[in-house]
């Protein structure tokens, strides 16, 4: 009896150790590249560390200075605005594109390839391309408008406060994140049972009714996933898009200076690493709040079949 239980315990231990061994690579990666940097980030935010390494503990001074800075508050509002609008715009666009591509028609693969192609271009290259397109005097878009209207179009797309957001959100439609969302939505749409649409057809439902009563509820878990990913992408990944387009100051007049740009500016142009870390902590908390908020809302609006 004793022998049997000892053998079982040994087997259980071996099983546990095997499981831990399989988990170990991820755990080591998580500790080294996520947990430690996050803790280090919090620690550095309490110092006046400069980029050249000089550092002294200053308590909460970085946070106090940050909350007194009008530049920070402007950046915070821009970040919230940019994140929410970008998330909505890119999600809606990805759903629309997925719906269009979901119609059974000839050359569907070609359309999908053409739409997805800009998404695989590195974001920085994409941004520089659009910077050229949206130029004022030598921009391609103004050239096309001039040719079409016969008038000399001189719209300052990226520097005029009335057009900068239109231009920026338009560019976000071509990023990798939006392309990826479209593919995920497309696969989700394929999983919606055809019988439901057939039943709708029998009942005489309109395409809009079919979309809002069948399609959207059925793909709502995917909408939730994409919304979260889009949100995190807008918060953390917008830097690569905005830096080449509007610079570290978020021109014009700080209208596009999201927190990631300001963090870069403080750390690498002003060499204020401690201060930049304090801002990163705020960005981290905002990302957490967005995630929690979306999950909270999702409980009411997301439909899980099972």
């Amino acid at each position: 009896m004793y022998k049997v239980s000892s053998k079982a315990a040994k087997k259980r231990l071996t099983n546990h150790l095997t499981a831990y061994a399989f988990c170990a690579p991820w755990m080591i990666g998580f500790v080294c590249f996520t947990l430690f940097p996050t803790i280090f980030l919090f620690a550095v935010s309490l110092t006046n560390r400069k980029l050249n390494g000089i550092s002294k503990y200053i308590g909460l001074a970085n946070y106090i200075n940050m909350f007194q800075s009008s530049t920070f508050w402007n950046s915070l509002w821009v970040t919230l605005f940019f994140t929410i609008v970008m998330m909505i715009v890119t999600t809606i666009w990805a759903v629309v594109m997925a719906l269009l591509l979901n119609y059974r028609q000839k050359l569907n693969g070609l359309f999908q390839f053409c739409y997805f192609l800009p998404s695989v271009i590195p974001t920085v290259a994409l941004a520089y391309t659009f910077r050229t397109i949206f130029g004022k005097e030598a921009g391609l878009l103004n050239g096309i408008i001039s040719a079409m209207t016969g008038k000399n179009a001189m719209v300052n797309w990226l520097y005029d406060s009335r057009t900068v957001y239109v231009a920026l959100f338009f560019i976000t439609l071509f990023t990798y994140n939006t392309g990826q969302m479209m593919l995920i939505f497309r696969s989700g749409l394929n999983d919606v049972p055809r019988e439901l649409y057939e039943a709708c057809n029998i009942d005489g439902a309109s395409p809009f009714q079919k979309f809002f009563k069948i399609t959207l509820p059925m793909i709502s878990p995917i909408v939730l996933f994409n919304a979260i990913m889009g949100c995190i992408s807008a918060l953390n990944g917008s830097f690569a898009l905005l830096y080449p387009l509007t610079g570290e100051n978020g021109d014009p007049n700080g209208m596009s200076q999201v927190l990631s740009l300001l963090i870069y500016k403080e750390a690498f142009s002003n060499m204020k690493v401690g201060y930049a870390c304090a801002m990163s902590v705020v960005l981290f908390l905002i990302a957490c709040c967005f995630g929690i908020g979306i999950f909270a809302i999702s409980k009411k609006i997301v439909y899980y079949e099972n």
Partner: protein
Amino acid sequence: MRRKKLWGRIFLTAAIVGVLAGCSSKGGETTGSSAEKTKKEEGQKVTIAVWNEPNKDEALNMYAQAEKATGIKVEVTVIPESDYSSKLNQMVSTGDDSADIYVIWENDIANFAKAGGIIPMDDYLKNSSIQTGDFIDAVSSLSSGLGGTYGLPWCAATELLFYNKDMFDSAGIPYPGNDWSYEDYKSAAEKLTKKKADGTTEQYGSALPNTQTWWAGIGGAGDKVYDPSKGEMVIGDGAVSFVSDVATMAKNGIMPEPSSDTADIFASGKAAMSWQGSWNIGTYGSSLPFQWDIATIPTDKVKYNTLHTGFYSINAKSKNQDAAFRVIEYLMGEEGQNINSKASGNPSAIKSIAEKGAWKVESASSVKNWEAMTDSLKAGVFGYTCLPSGVTNNAVSEFNAAVLGQKTPEEAVKKADAYARETIGY
């Protein structure tokens, strides 16, 4: 027994001498003949970090020439200009020894010295041929207060008015002189502007100031720009006045407004004048499809010009410090300085070398007013370049917002000043 003692003493003396010799040779610079040191350094490799590509013409490549002259292999690490300062700061922070020589910017030298990232070169300079007493005054004053000589200026660049002679000829306007006033400049810019029938501008009188030359305008309008005693940015009425002028000129189509266009409108023949760095003389050379020349930046209330340089300095973590200094010694010598001047169009910061005029770039055959360079250098001070780039770039963004009519010049200057105050002295 006596003989044993004698041998013992001889061995002991030899051992002590040997140990002392070993210790001193580790320091390198205090003992040993120069020839021995040179021999030791030959064949070593020294890496230098810079932000611009070495000249493709080997005769104008000062690093290739330094290699030939010293026998030390010189490897050049080019770091893009936009990331240059931050990369070097990170290298200092992590104790990186991949670069033996840094060419560091004005706003970094004090911080690097304070962080122990670079070494004082005073011991080396004692036995060196580098003419440190002959540096232009601005360089000497910038280096003072660091407690040693941590860097040696690789050149002295300045800012100039570049103008299109063909456009001046066609408008019948006399060429700018070094005594041009700011009013002369504004008046000429207006006359040189050509508009299309729909009111849009076909030819601008002047290009918009760039991130560097905004400060020449502000300094010329009477602001101090940079206070070296406090390390602060000092802008006020002068900045408001200059920003207002630029805004008016942009509104009237004399200057283009800030935009995402990246083309150089002077080089593309769309603007008659442009305020730019002297290094563009070498860049333009004979490549422009029109005749052009240079003049001193027009004088407003004050004759003001921003000096630019970089400092050769030795990485404190370098394992090849002696060899690194030998390379610097060549680069700071007459031959090295002349090659640099010929390649870049920037004069040497050593007055006696600069006077010989190697900076008169041969390929820039249309330039006649070389006096503009020496005149500009006389008025040159280290200004905005001593401030963190985040602060000055932020100010330029504010000025651009005012030019675009998104805020008043007063608001822009006030906001730029407030940001500088919360940033500097961190």
